[in-house]
Protein backbone atom coordinates (compact mmCIF):
# COMPACT_ATOMS: atom_id res chain seq x y z
CA UNK A 1 0.00 0.00 0.00
CA UNK A 2 1.24 3.49 -0.83
CA UNK A 3 2.27 5.71 2.06
CA UNK A 4 -0.75 7.15 3.81
CA UNK A 5 -1.22 10.87 3.89
CA UNK A 6 -3.39 13.07 6.09
CA UNK A 7 -7.05 12.28 5.53
CA UNK A 8 -8.78 14.76 3.23
CA UNK A 9 -11.80 12.92 1.83
CA UNK A 10 -14.45 10.55 3.15
CA UNK A 11 -16.61 8.48 0.78
CA UNK A 12 -19.84 7.21 2.28
CA UNK A 13 -22.15 4.51 0.94
CA UNK A 14 -25.87 5.28 1.22
CA UNK A 15 -28.17 2.25 1.35
CA UNK A 16 -27.28 -0.02 4.27
CA UNK A 17 -24.83 2.51 5.70
CA UNK A 18 -26.78 5.75 6.25
CA UNK A 19 -30.23 4.24 5.85
CA UNK A 20 -32.09 0.99 5.28
CA UNK A 21 -34.94 1.70 2.88
CA UNK A 22 -36.94 4.46 4.59
CA UNK A 23 -35.31 4.38 8.02
CA UNK A 24 -32.09 6.12 8.96
CA UNK A 25 -29.41 4.13 10.75
CA UNK A 26 -29.74 5.34 14.39
CA UNK A 27 -27.52 8.36 15.03
CA UNK A 28 -26.39 8.66 11.41
CA UNK A 29 -27.63 12.24 10.85
CA UNK A 30 -25.84 13.50 13.98
CA UNK A 31 -22.70 11.61 13.00
CA UNK A 32 -22.71 13.21 9.53
CA UNK A 33 -22.91 16.65 11.21
CA UNK A 34 -19.90 15.82 13.36
CA UNK A 35 -18.01 14.69 10.26
CA UNK A 36 -18.85 17.95 8.46
CA UNK A 37 -17.17 19.92 11.22
CA UNK A 38 -13.87 18.27 10.24
CA UNK A 39 -11.74 19.60 7.34
CA UNK A 40 -12.61 16.78 4.90
CA UNK A 41 -14.46 16.59 1.58
CA UNK A 42 -17.43 14.22 1.67
CA UNK A 43 -18.87 12.27 -1.26
CA UNK A 44 -21.79 9.90 -1.20
CA UNK A 45 -21.13 7.02 -3.55
CA UNK A 46 -23.78 4.49 -4.35
CA UNK A 47 -24.61 1.50 -6.48
CA UNK A 48 -28.29 2.07 -5.75
CA UNK A 49 -29.44 1.81 -9.34
CA UNK A 50 -33.17 1.70 -8.79
CA UNK A 51 -33.29 5.41 -8.24
CA UNK A 52 -32.05 8.52 -10.00
CA UNK A 53 -30.10 11.17 -8.11
CA UNK A 54 -33.23 13.23 -7.56
CA UNK A 55 -34.99 10.34 -5.79
CA UNK A 56 -31.96 9.61 -3.67
CA UNK A 57 -31.71 13.21 -2.60
CA UNK A 58 -35.41 13.43 -1.74
CA UNK A 59 -35.25 10.36 0.45
CA UNK A 60 -32.13 11.56 2.25
CA UNK A 61 -33.71 14.96 2.86
CA UNK A 62 -36.84 13.30 4.22
CA UNK A 63 -34.62 11.37 6.63
CA UNK A 64 -33.08 14.73 7.60
CA UNK A 65 -29.63 14.15 6.20
CA UNK A 66 -27.77 17.30 5.23
CA UNK A 67 -26.56 16.37 1.71
CA UNK A 68 -26.23 18.33 -1.57
CA UNK A 69 -26.90 16.84 -5.03
CA UNK A 70 -23.37 17.49 -6.28
CA UNK A 71 -21.96 15.43 -3.42
CA UNK A 72 -23.65 12.30 -4.79
CA UNK A 73 -21.89 10.10 -7.34
CA UNK A 74 -23.81 7.09 -8.62
CA UNK A 75 -23.11 4.15 -10.88
CA UNK A 76 -25.86 5.45 -13.20
CA UNK A 77 -23.83 8.59 -13.83
CA UNK A 78 -20.82 6.41 -14.54
CA UNK A 79 -22.84 4.23 -16.99
CA UNK A 80 -24.18 7.21 -18.88
CA UNK A 81 -20.67 8.60 -19.23
CA UNK A 82 -19.55 5.30 -20.74
CA UNK A 83 -22.49 5.08 -23.21
CA UNK A 84 -21.72 8.57 -24.48
CA UNK A 85 -18.08 7.72 -24.81
CA UNK A 86 -18.83 4.53 -26.82
CA UNK A 87 -21.67 6.22 -28.79
CA UNK A 88 -24.01 3.24 -28.52
CA UNK A 89 -27.80 2.86 -28.17
CA UNK A 90 -28.64 0.85 -25.06
CA UNK A 91 -31.36 -1.62 -24.15
CA UNK A 92 -31.81 -0.28 -20.61
CA UNK A 93 -32.62 -2.95 -18.04
CA UNK A 94 -33.03 -0.46 -15.23
CA UNK A 95 -36.03 0.51 -13.11
CA UNK A 96 -38.28 3.23 -14.50
CA UNK A 97 -37.11 5.75 -11.92
CA UNK A 98 -33.51 5.34 -12.98
CA UNK A 99 -34.45 6.28 -16.55
CA UNK A 100 -34.35 9.97 -15.54
CA UNK A 101 -30.59 9.77 -15.38
CA UNK A 102 -30.54 8.52 -19.03
CA UNK A 103 -32.76 11.28 -20.44
CA UNK A 104 -31.78 12.14 -24.01
CA UNK A 105 -29.91 8.88 -24.66
CA UNK A 106 -31.02 7.24 -27.96
CA UNK A 107 -32.48 3.79 -27.24
CA UNK A 108 -33.92 2.96 -30.70
CA UNK A 109 -32.75 -0.27 -32.33
CA UNK A 110 -30.39 -1.04 -29.45
CA UNK A 111 -26.80 -2.18 -29.97
CA UNK A 112 -25.74 -2.28 -26.32
CA UNK A 113 -27.17 -3.71 -23.09
CA UNK A 114 -27.12 -1.88 -19.76
CA UNK A 115 -28.03 -3.85 -16.66
CA UNK A 116 -28.90 -2.22 -13.37
CA UNK A 117 -31.04 -3.43 -10.52
CA UNK A 118 -34.29 -4.09 -12.33
CA UNK A 119 -36.42 -6.79 -10.70
CA UNK A 120 -39.27 -5.90 -13.09
CA UNK A 121 -37.06 -6.62 -16.13
CA UNK A 122 -35.21 -9.67 -14.82
CA UNK A 123 -37.48 -12.22 -16.43
CA UNK A 124 -37.21 -14.86 -19.11
CA UNK A 125 -38.38 -12.89 -22.20
CA UNK A 126 -36.34 -9.79 -21.38
CA UNK A 127 -33.18 -11.70 -20.51
CA UNK A 128 -33.54 -13.65 -23.78
CA UNK A 129 -33.71 -10.35 -25.65
CA UNK A 130 -30.59 -9.05 -23.92
CA UNK A 131 -28.87 -12.39 -24.54
CA UNK A 132 -29.49 -12.25 -28.29
CA UNK A 133 -28.19 -8.69 -28.58
CA UNK A 134 -25.00 -9.61 -26.72
CA UNK A 135 -24.53 -12.73 -28.83
CA UNK A 136 -24.73 -10.43 -31.88
CA UNK A 137 -21.89 -8.35 -30.47
CA UNK A 138 -23.61 -5.68 -28.35
CA UNK A 139 -21.41 -4.62 -25.41
CA UNK A 140 -22.72 -5.59 -21.96
CA UNK A 141 -22.48 -2.79 -19.43
CA UNK A 142 -23.20 -3.61 -15.81
CA UNK A 143 -23.99 -0.77 -13.49
CA UNK A 144 -22.58 -2.95 -10.77
CA UNK A 145 -22.26 -6.65 -9.91
CA UNK A 146 -23.56 -6.81 -6.34
CA UNK A 147 -24.68 -10.31 -5.43
CA UNK A 148 -27.68 -9.29 -3.36
CA UNK A 149 -29.14 -6.46 -1.38
CA UNK A 150 -31.31 -6.13 1.67
CA UNK A 151 -35.00 -5.35 1.42
CA UNK A 152 -37.50 -5.01 4.26
CA UNK A 153 -38.71 -8.54 3.54
CA UNK A 154 -35.22 -10.06 3.42
CA UNK A 155 -32.28 -10.47 1.07
CA UNK A 156 -32.94 -10.14 -2.66
CA UNK A 157 -30.92 -10.83 -5.81
CA UNK A 158 -28.86 -7.93 -7.13
CA UNK A 159 -27.79 -7.34 -10.75
CA UNK A 160 -24.52 -9.28 -10.42
CA UNK A 161 -26.11 -12.74 -10.66
CA UNK A 162 -27.96 -11.82 -13.87
CA UNK A 163 -24.89 -10.21 -15.42
CA UNK A 164 -22.93 -13.36 -14.60
CA UNK A 165 -25.60 -15.55 -16.18
CA UNK A 166 -25.49 -13.52 -19.40
CA UNK A 167 -21.70 -13.56 -19.42
CA UNK A 168 -21.73 -17.33 -19.12
CA UNK A 169 -24.32 -17.78 -21.88
CA UNK A 170 -22.52 -15.50 -24.35
CA UNK A 171 -18.87 -15.90 -23.38
CA UNK A 172 -18.76 -12.10 -23.21
CA UNK A 173 -17.31 -10.04 -20.40
CA UNK A 174 -19.31 -7.18 -18.91
CA UNK A 175 -17.83 -3.75 -18.38
CA UNK A 176 -18.69 -2.92 -14.79
CA UNK A 177 -19.00 0.78 -14.04
CA UNK A 178 -20.06 0.84 -10.39
CA UNK A 179 -18.40 -0.24 -7.16
CA UNK A 180 -16.05 -2.11 -6.70
CA UNK A 181 -14.37 -0.87 -9.91
CA UNK A 182 -11.28 1.20 -9.37
CA UNK A 183 -12.36 3.80 -11.97
CA UNK A 184 -15.58 4.33 -10.04
CA UNK A 185 -13.75 5.35 -6.88
CA UNK A 186 -11.31 7.55 -8.81
CA UNK A 187 -14.19 9.28 -10.66
CA UNK A 188 -15.96 9.85 -7.35
CA UNK A 189 -12.87 11.57 -5.96
CA UNK A 190 -12.57 13.80 -8.99
CA UNK A 191 -13.46 17.33 -7.92
CA UNK A 192 -12.28 16.84 -4.37
CA UNK A 193 -8.68 17.36 -5.42
CA UNK A 194 -7.65 14.36 -3.34
CA UNK A 195 -5.72 11.21 -4.20
CA UNK A 196 -6.87 7.77 -2.99
CA UNK A 197 -4.16 7.72 -0.31
CA UNK A 198 -5.93 10.67 1.30
CA UNK A 199 -9.36 9.06 1.36
CA UNK A 200 -11.41 6.57 3.37
CA UNK A 201 -14.55 4.70 2.28
CA UNK A 202 -17.33 3.64 4.68
CA UNK A 203 -19.80 0.96 3.60
CA UNK A 204 -21.74 -2.19 4.48
CA UNK A 205 -20.60 -4.30 1.51
CA UNK A 206 -17.30 -5.93 2.30
CA UNK A 207 -16.25 -6.67 -1.28
CA UNK A 208 -17.85 -3.81 -3.21
CA UNK A 209 -17.35 -0.95 -0.76
CA UNK A 210 -14.38 -1.89 1.34
CA UNK A 211 -12.48 -4.24 -0.96
CA UNK A 212 -13.01 -1.97 -3.98
CA UNK A 213 -11.87 1.17 -2.15
CA UNK A 214 -8.85 -0.56 -0.69
CA UNK A 215 -7.85 -1.85 -4.13
CA UNK A 216 -8.04 1.73 -5.38
CA UNK A 217 -5.62 2.81 -2.63
CA UNK A 218 -8.04 4.07 0.01
CA UNK A 219 -8.74 2.88 3.53
CA UNK A 220 -11.95 0.88 3.93
CA UNK A 221 -14.25 0.79 6.94
CA UNK A 222 -16.91 -1.94 7.09
CA UNK A 223 -20.07 -1.23 9.10
CA UNK A 224 -22.20 -4.02 10.53
CA UNK A 225 -25.52 -2.61 9.31
CA UNK A 226 -27.55 -3.18 6.13
CA UNK A 227 -26.52 -6.27 4.23
CA UNK A 228 -23.65 -7.09 6.61
CA UNK A 229 -23.61 -10.74 7.67
CA UNK A 230 -21.43 -12.30 10.35
CA UNK A 231 -17.85 -12.98 9.23
CA UNK A 232 -18.13 -10.84 6.06
CA UNK A 233 -14.87 -9.11 7.06
CA UNK A 234 -13.07 -12.40 6.37
CA UNK A 235 -14.15 -12.35 2.70
CA UNK A 236 -11.43 -9.99 1.49
CA UNK A 237 -7.67 -9.90 1.70
CA UNK A 238 -6.20 -7.63 2.93
CA UNK A 239 -8.94 -7.40 5.59
CA UNK A 240 -10.87 -4.16 6.08
CA UNK A 241 -8.85 -1.39 7.73
CA UNK A 242 -11.59 -1.35 10.37
CA UNK A 243 -14.88 -3.15 11.08
CA UNK A 244 -17.29 -1.37 13.41
CA UNK A 245 -20.91 -1.39 14.53
CA UNK A 246 -22.33 1.40 12.41
CA UNK A 247 -21.74 4.72 10.63
CA UNK A 248 -21.59 6.81 13.86
CA UNK A 249 -18.82 4.54 15.19
CA UNK A 250 -16.93 4.91 11.92
CA UNK A 251 -17.16 8.70 12.14
CA UNK A 252 -15.92 8.69 15.73
CA UNK A 253 -12.94 6.57 14.70
CA UNK A 254 -12.10 8.97 11.87
CA UNK A 255 -12.37 12.04 14.10
CA UNK A 256 -10.24 10.47 16.83
CA UNK A 257 -7.60 8.61 14.84
CA UNK A 258 -7.34 9.70 11.21
CA UNK A 259 -7.15 13.49 11.33
Amino acid sequence: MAARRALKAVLVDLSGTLHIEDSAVPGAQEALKRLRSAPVAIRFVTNTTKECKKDLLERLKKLEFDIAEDEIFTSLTAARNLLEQKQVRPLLLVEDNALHDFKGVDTNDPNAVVIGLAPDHFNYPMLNKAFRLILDGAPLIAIHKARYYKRKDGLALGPGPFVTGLEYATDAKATVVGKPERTFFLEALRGTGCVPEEAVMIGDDCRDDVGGAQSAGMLGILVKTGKYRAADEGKISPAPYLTCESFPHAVDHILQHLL
Partner: protein
Amino acid sequence: TADRGQQLAGIQGLVLDISGVLYDSGGEAGGLPIPGSIDAVKKIKASGLRLRFCTNETQATRDKFVEKLQRLGFDIAVNEVTAPATAACRILKERNLRPHLLVHDDLVPEFDQIDKANPNCVVIGDAADNFSYQNLNEAFRVLIGLEKPILISLGSGRYYKETDGLKLDVGAYMKTLEYACDIQAEVVGKPAKTFFQSALAEMGVEPQQAIMIGDDIVNDVGGAQQCGMKALLVRTGKYRPCDEQHPQVKADGYVDNLAEAVDVILKQLHK
Protein backbone atom coordinates in the same frame (compact mmCIF):
# COMPACT_ATOMS: atom_id res chain seq x y z
CA THR B 1 -11.31 -41.32 -45.84
CA ALA B 2 -9.02 -43.89 -44.27
CA ASP B 3 -8.92 -41.70 -41.23
CA ARG B 4 -12.62 -41.94 -40.80
CA GLY B 5 -12.62 -45.67 -41.32
CA GLN B 6 -10.15 -46.09 -38.51
CA GLN B 7 -12.13 -43.80 -36.22
CA LEU B 8 -15.22 -45.85 -36.74
CA ALA B 9 -13.65 -49.25 -36.21
CA GLY B 10 -15.39 -51.11 -33.41
CA ILE B 11 -18.32 -48.72 -33.13
CA GLN B 12 -21.35 -50.45 -31.63
CA GLY B 13 -23.61 -47.71 -30.45
CA LEU B 14 -24.74 -44.14 -31.12
CA VAL B 15 -25.85 -41.60 -28.55
CA LEU B 16 -28.03 -38.84 -29.96
CA ASP B 17 -28.82 -35.48 -28.51
CA ILE B 18 -32.46 -34.64 -29.20
CA SER B 19 -33.14 -30.92 -29.31
CA GLY B 20 -31.32 -29.36 -32.28
CA VAL B 21 -30.45 -32.78 -33.70
CA LEU B 22 -33.81 -34.52 -34.12
CA TYR B 23 -35.95 -31.41 -34.05
CA ASP B 24 -36.11 -27.71 -33.21
CA SER B 25 -38.45 -27.06 -30.31
CA GLY B 26 -41.04 -24.31 -30.03
CA GLY B 27 -44.10 -23.16 -31.96
CA GLU B 28 -47.63 -24.49 -31.85
CA ALA B 29 -46.84 -28.12 -32.65
CA GLY B 30 -44.13 -28.08 -29.98
CA GLY B 31 -41.44 -28.27 -32.63
CA LEU B 32 -40.38 -29.11 -36.16
CA PRO B 33 -38.40 -32.19 -37.20
CA ILE B 34 -35.03 -31.36 -38.75
CA PRO B 35 -35.19 -32.60 -42.37
CA GLY B 36 -33.85 -36.15 -42.72
CA SER B 37 -33.75 -36.88 -38.99
CA ILE B 38 -36.87 -39.07 -38.81
CA ASP B 39 -35.41 -41.36 -41.49
CA ALA B 40 -31.95 -41.25 -39.92
CA VAL B 41 -33.30 -42.69 -36.65
CA LYS B 42 -35.05 -45.48 -38.60
CA LYS B 43 -31.82 -46.28 -40.44
CA ILE B 44 -29.85 -46.53 -37.18
CA LYS B 45 -32.41 -48.92 -35.74
CA ALA B 46 -32.38 -51.04 -38.90
CA SER B 47 -28.56 -51.16 -38.92
CA GLY B 48 -28.26 -53.16 -35.71
CA LEU B 49 -26.26 -50.41 -33.99
CA ARG B 50 -27.37 -49.80 -30.45
CA LEU B 51 -29.03 -46.44 -29.89
CA ARG B 52 -29.59 -44.17 -26.92
CA PHE B 53 -31.07 -40.70 -26.73
CA CYS B 54 -29.31 -38.48 -24.23
CA THR B 55 -30.98 -35.16 -23.51
CA ASN B 56 -30.78 -32.33 -21.04
CA GLU B 57 -34.40 -31.59 -21.80
CA THR B 58 -36.12 -30.64 -18.57
CA GLN B 59 -39.18 -28.77 -19.78
CA ALA B 60 -41.37 -31.84 -19.58
CA THR B 61 -41.53 -35.28 -18.01
CA ARG B 62 -39.85 -37.97 -20.04
CA ASP B 63 -43.25 -39.46 -20.91
CA LYS B 64 -44.65 -36.22 -22.30
CA PHE B 65 -41.44 -35.43 -24.10
CA VAL B 66 -41.31 -38.79 -25.85
CA GLU B 67 -45.01 -38.53 -26.74
CA LYS B 68 -44.29 -35.24 -28.48
CA LEU B 69 -41.42 -36.74 -30.46
CA GLN B 70 -43.57 -39.70 -31.49
CA ARG B 71 -46.24 -37.26 -32.65
CA LEU B 72 -43.60 -35.51 -34.76
CA GLY B 73 -42.93 -38.89 -36.41
CA PHE B 74 -39.90 -40.25 -34.52
CA ASP B 75 -39.46 -43.92 -33.68
CA ILE B 76 -38.52 -43.44 -30.03
CA ALA B 77 -39.56 -45.00 -26.69
CA VAL B 78 -39.36 -43.70 -23.12
CA ASN B 79 -36.88 -46.41 -22.06
CA GLU B 80 -34.45 -45.30 -24.77
CA VAL B 81 -34.07 -41.83 -23.27
CA THR B 82 -31.56 -40.74 -20.62
CA ALA B 83 -32.72 -37.47 -19.01
CA PRO B 84 -31.50 -35.51 -15.97
CA ALA B 85 -34.61 -35.53 -13.76
CA THR B 86 -34.49 -39.29 -13.17
CA ALA B 87 -30.79 -39.05 -12.31
CA ALA B 88 -31.50 -36.15 -9.94
CA CYS B 89 -34.22 -38.07 -8.09
CA ARG B 90 -31.76 -40.90 -7.46
CA ILE B 91 -29.27 -38.44 -5.94
CA LEU B 92 -31.94 -36.77 -3.80
CA LYS B 93 -33.02 -40.10 -2.33
CA GLU B 94 -29.47 -41.33 -1.75
CA ARG B 95 -28.50 -38.20 0.16
CA ASN B 96 -31.78 -37.52 1.98
CA LEU B 97 -32.16 -34.20 0.21
CA ARG B 98 -35.48 -32.39 0.15
CA PRO B 99 -35.52 -30.06 -2.84
CA HIS B 100 -36.98 -26.66 -3.45
CA LEU B 101 -37.83 -26.95 -7.15
CA LEU B 102 -37.16 -24.24 -9.71
CA VAL B 103 -38.22 -26.19 -12.79
CA HIS B 104 -40.76 -26.12 -15.59
CA ASP B 105 -44.33 -26.86 -14.40
CA ASP B 106 -44.42 -29.87 -16.69
CA LEU B 107 -41.37 -31.43 -15.03
CA VAL B 108 -42.79 -31.30 -11.49
CA PRO B 109 -44.51 -34.74 -11.73
CA GLU B 110 -41.05 -36.38 -12.05
CA PHE B 111 -40.52 -35.38 -8.39
CA ASP B 112 -43.88 -36.68 -7.10
CA GLN B 113 -42.25 -39.34 -4.94
CA ILE B 114 -39.74 -36.93 -3.37
CA ASP B 115 -40.22 -35.27 0.01
CA LYS B 116 -40.14 -31.52 -0.57
CA ALA B 117 -41.09 -30.23 2.91
CA ASN B 118 -38.62 -27.95 4.68
CA PRO B 119 -36.13 -27.95 1.78
CA ASN B 120 -32.39 -28.43 2.28
CA CYS B 121 -31.32 -27.98 -1.35
CA VAL B 122 -32.44 -26.39 -4.60
CA VAL B 123 -32.95 -28.24 -7.89
CA ILE B 124 -32.90 -26.02 -10.96
CA GLY B 125 -33.95 -27.08 -14.46
CA ASP B 126 -34.85 -25.26 -17.65
CA ALA B 127 -37.82 -23.49 -16.09
CA ALA B 128 -38.39 -21.17 -19.09
CA ASP B 129 -41.21 -18.76 -18.17
CA ASN B 130 -40.87 -19.82 -14.54
CA PHE B 131 -37.54 -17.96 -14.50
CA SER B 132 -39.15 -14.87 -13.01
CA TYR B 133 -37.35 -12.61 -10.59
CA GLN B 134 -39.63 -13.76 -7.80
CA ASN B 135 -38.99 -17.46 -8.40
CA LEU B 136 -35.24 -16.97 -8.69
CA ASN B 137 -35.31 -14.93 -5.51
CA GLU B 138 -37.17 -17.67 -3.65
CA ALA B 139 -34.57 -20.22 -4.68
CA PHE B 140 -31.83 -17.79 -3.68
CA ARG B 141 -33.34 -17.31 -0.23
CA VAL B 142 -33.56 -21.05 0.36
CA LEU B 143 -29.88 -21.40 -0.55
CA ILE B 144 -28.57 -18.40 1.38
CA GLY B 145 -30.50 -19.61 4.45
CA LEU B 146 -28.73 -23.00 4.45
CA GLU B 147 -25.57 -23.57 6.40
CA LYS B 148 -24.13 -25.50 3.47
CA PRO B 149 -26.07 -24.53 0.35
CA ILE B 150 -26.56 -27.34 -2.18
CA LEU B 151 -27.61 -26.44 -5.71
CA ILE B 152 -28.32 -29.28 -8.13
CA SER B 153 -28.58 -28.21 -11.75
CA LEU B 154 -30.25 -30.30 -14.44
CA GLY B 155 -27.69 -29.49 -17.11
CA SER B 156 -25.41 -26.50 -17.59
CA GLY B 157 -26.23 -25.57 -21.22
CA ARG B 158 -25.80 -21.95 -22.24
CA TYR B 159 -28.60 -21.66 -24.77
CA TYR B 160 -30.60 -23.61 -27.29
CA LYS B 161 -32.57 -22.89 -30.40
CA GLU B 162 -36.33 -22.79 -30.64
CA THR B 163 -38.29 -22.14 -33.81
CA ASP B 164 -38.47 -18.43 -32.89
CA GLY B 165 -34.81 -18.00 -32.01
CA LEU B 166 -32.12 -18.72 -29.42
CA LYS B 167 -33.15 -19.02 -25.77
CA LEU B 168 -31.15 -18.96 -22.55
CA ASP B 169 -30.74 -22.43 -21.08
CA VAL B 170 -30.57 -23.57 -17.47
CA GLY B 171 -26.79 -22.99 -17.27
CA ALA B 172 -27.23 -19.23 -17.37
CA TYR B 173 -29.59 -19.37 -14.40
CA MET B 174 -27.42 -21.88 -12.59
CA LYS B 175 -24.59 -19.33 -12.86
CA THR B 176 -27.00 -16.67 -11.57
CA LEU B 177 -27.56 -18.59 -8.34
CA GLU B 178 -23.93 -19.73 -8.09
CA TYR B 179 -22.71 -16.16 -8.20
CA ALA B 180 -25.39 -14.88 -5.82
CA CYS B 181 -24.51 -17.45 -3.15
CA ASP B 182 -20.82 -17.88 -3.95
CA ILE B 183 -21.25 -21.62 -4.47
CA GLN B 184 -20.69 -24.28 -7.14
CA ALA B 185 -23.65 -26.23 -8.46
CA GLU B 186 -23.59 -29.99 -8.87
CA VAL B 187 -24.51 -30.63 -12.49
CA VAL B 188 -26.68 -33.59 -13.36
CA GLY B 189 -26.95 -34.12 -17.12
CA LYS B 190 -24.56 -33.32 -19.94
CA PRO B 191 -21.62 -32.62 -19.77
CA ALA B 192 -21.29 -34.54 -16.46
CA LYS B 193 -19.27 -37.71 -16.96
CA THR B 194 -21.62 -39.77 -14.80
CA PHE B 195 -24.50 -38.83 -17.07
CA PHE B 196 -22.80 -40.14 -20.21
CA GLN B 197 -21.66 -43.19 -18.29
CA SER B 198 -25.21 -44.07 -17.29
CA ALA B 199 -26.37 -43.67 -20.90
CA LEU B 200 -23.57 -46.03 -22.01
CA ALA B 201 -24.36 -48.53 -19.26
CA GLU B 202 -28.03 -48.47 -20.25
CA MET B 203 -27.12 -49.54 -23.78
CA GLY B 204 -24.33 -51.86 -22.71
CA VAL B 205 -21.54 -50.27 -24.75
CA GLU B 206 -18.03 -49.13 -23.76
CA PRO B 207 -17.13 -45.43 -24.26
CA GLN B 208 -14.66 -46.13 -27.06
CA GLN B 209 -17.36 -48.13 -28.88
CA ALA B 210 -19.81 -45.22 -28.96
CA ILE B 211 -20.28 -41.98 -30.90
CA MET B 212 -22.15 -38.98 -29.57
CA ILE B 213 -23.94 -36.76 -32.08
CA GLY B 214 -24.98 -33.32 -30.87
CA ASP B 215 -25.33 -29.61 -31.69
CA ASP B 216 -23.62 -28.33 -28.51
CA ILE B 217 -19.86 -28.16 -28.90
CA VAL B 218 -19.20 -27.98 -25.15
CA ASN B 219 -21.90 -30.09 -23.54
CA ASP B 220 -22.43 -32.78 -26.20
CA VAL B 221 -19.07 -32.99 -27.95
CA GLY B 222 -16.75 -31.93 -25.13
CA GLY B 223 -18.65 -33.89 -22.50
CA ALA B 224 -18.70 -37.12 -24.54
CA GLN B 225 -14.99 -36.83 -25.39
CA GLN B 226 -14.15 -36.36 -21.69
CA CYS B 227 -15.89 -39.64 -21.13
CA GLY B 228 -13.80 -41.40 -23.79
CA MET B 229 -16.35 -41.36 -26.60
CA LYS B 230 -16.02 -40.00 -30.11
CA ALA B 231 -18.27 -37.07 -30.92
CA LEU B 232 -19.66 -35.39 -34.03
CA LEU B 233 -21.04 -31.87 -34.21
CA VAL B 234 -24.07 -31.28 -36.45
CA ARG B 235 -24.59 -27.95 -38.19
CA THR B 236 -28.23 -27.75 -37.03
CA GLY B 237 -29.99 -26.45 -33.92
CA LYS B 238 -27.92 -24.02 -31.93
CA TYR B 239 -24.83 -24.60 -34.12
CA ARG B 240 -22.93 -21.47 -35.08
CA PRO B 241 -19.97 -21.46 -37.50
CA CYS B 242 -17.62 -20.20 -34.76
CA ASP B 243 -18.21 -23.53 -32.94
CA GLU B 244 -15.79 -25.13 -35.40
CA GLN B 245 -13.02 -22.89 -34.06
CA HIS B 246 -13.82 -23.48 -30.41
CA PRO B 247 -10.70 -22.78 -28.31
CA GLN B 248 -11.06 -25.86 -26.09
CA VAL B 249 -13.13 -28.45 -27.91
CA LYS B 250 -12.53 -30.05 -31.29
CA ALA B 251 -15.12 -32.51 -32.60
CA ASP B 252 -14.05 -35.76 -34.24
CA GLY B 253 -16.08 -34.63 -37.23
CA TYR B 254 -18.44 -31.90 -38.41
CA VAL B 255 -21.52 -32.87 -40.43
CA ASP B 256 -24.41 -30.89 -41.90
CA ASN B 257 -27.09 -32.78 -40.01
CA LEU B 258 -28.02 -36.08 -38.42
CA ALA B 259 -28.88 -37.59 -41.82
CA GLU B 260 -25.35 -36.96 -43.08
CA ALA B 261 -23.81 -38.26 -39.85
CA VAL B 262 -25.75 -41.52 -40.11
CA ASP B 263 -24.96 -41.97 -43.83
CA VAL B 264 -21.23 -41.50 -43.20
CA ILE B 265 -21.20 -43.87 -40.23
CA LEU B 266 -23.24 -46.62 -41.90
CA LYS B 267 -21.20 -46.42 -45.12
CA GLN B 268 -17.97 -46.90 -43.17
CA LEU B 269 -19.36 -49.73 -41.07
CA HIS B 270 -20.52 -51.65 -44.13
CA LYS B 271 -17.21 -51.37 -45.91
